[in-house]
């Protein structure tokens, strides 16, 4: 069983395909879950505090905007844990945790330079490309064992 980070880290489709193959999908909602279940924190909506951009300094310098560093506080640990990754190109509807293009660029960069097994694809537009999409991902995930 391998930890596979999906990009966008909010993708239901990728997370589902990873989990049905028996691996663990690293998705940002799991990081959010840890935050909102932390007792003693009350910082709506996600229980993120000014400490999070400070944690994000590990991944981006102090002159990088706080929103990037804050998002990296969530995504950085996921990237560190990842043994493999699936990356969708041309993300069109990235909002919230993936709502910042600079954060997304940094995330993809860190994943690619980590030298872990990584596959890059586009979202399918028709049945034909969907079959290829699912097949390639399945092959990739099965090859991780």
């Amino acid at each position, binding site marked *: 069983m391998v930890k596979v980070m999906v990009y966008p880290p909010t993708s*239901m489709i990728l997370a589902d395909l990873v989990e049905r193959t028996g691996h663990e999908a690293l998705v940002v*909602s799991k*990081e959010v*879950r840890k935050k909102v279940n932390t007792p003693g924190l009350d910082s709506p909506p996600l229980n993120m505090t000014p400490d999070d951009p400070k944690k994000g300094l590990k991944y981006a310098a102090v002159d990088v905007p706080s929103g990037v560093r804050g998002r990296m506080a969530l995504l950085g640990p996921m990237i560190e844990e990842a043994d493999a990754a699936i990356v969708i190109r041309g993300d069109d*509807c*990235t909002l919230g945790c993936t709502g910042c293009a600079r954060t997304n660029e940094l995330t993809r960069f860190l994943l690619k330079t980590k030298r872990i097994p990584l596959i890059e694809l586009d979202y*399918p537009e028709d049945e034909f490309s969907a*079959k290829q999409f*699912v097949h390639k991902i399945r092959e990739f995930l099965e090859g991780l064992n």
Partner: protein
Amino acid sequence: MKSTKYVVTSQDSDVLPSDIALKIYELGREINVKETCFGVIIDGEEEDVEATAKEIRAMDPSNIFIKDRGFPPGDPRRCRGHRGGGARPGFYMMQHESEILPLISRGLAAEARGEEVPSSIGAKKRPSLEELEVMINEEFS
């Protein structure tokens, strides 16, 4: 730790949210179920939720998709009604991906049938200069 998951059915599925709810009640674990327009939200202890999710997926593997959710259902910190209106950002992503779920379903069904994956159709070819010239002359004549 408690965990929450969405169970989303693709439009091609014959499984209704109410069928899923019923199945969960039958399984008898300590799981809360909330029906929504796109499927259900389930929450409970992590191991129970994981196990339940697997069994629900088995009801229609090509058409049921499972996604983790950070917040428990109805949490006021993320609820539209309590937080000045407007959908959570995650909602748009789900809506976006839901549009291509039927395609993914067909891909999964093809895999399940062991269908051979078609190789790519010839890559799109750029027209040559001569071909382009013919096209331009036709268009502007």
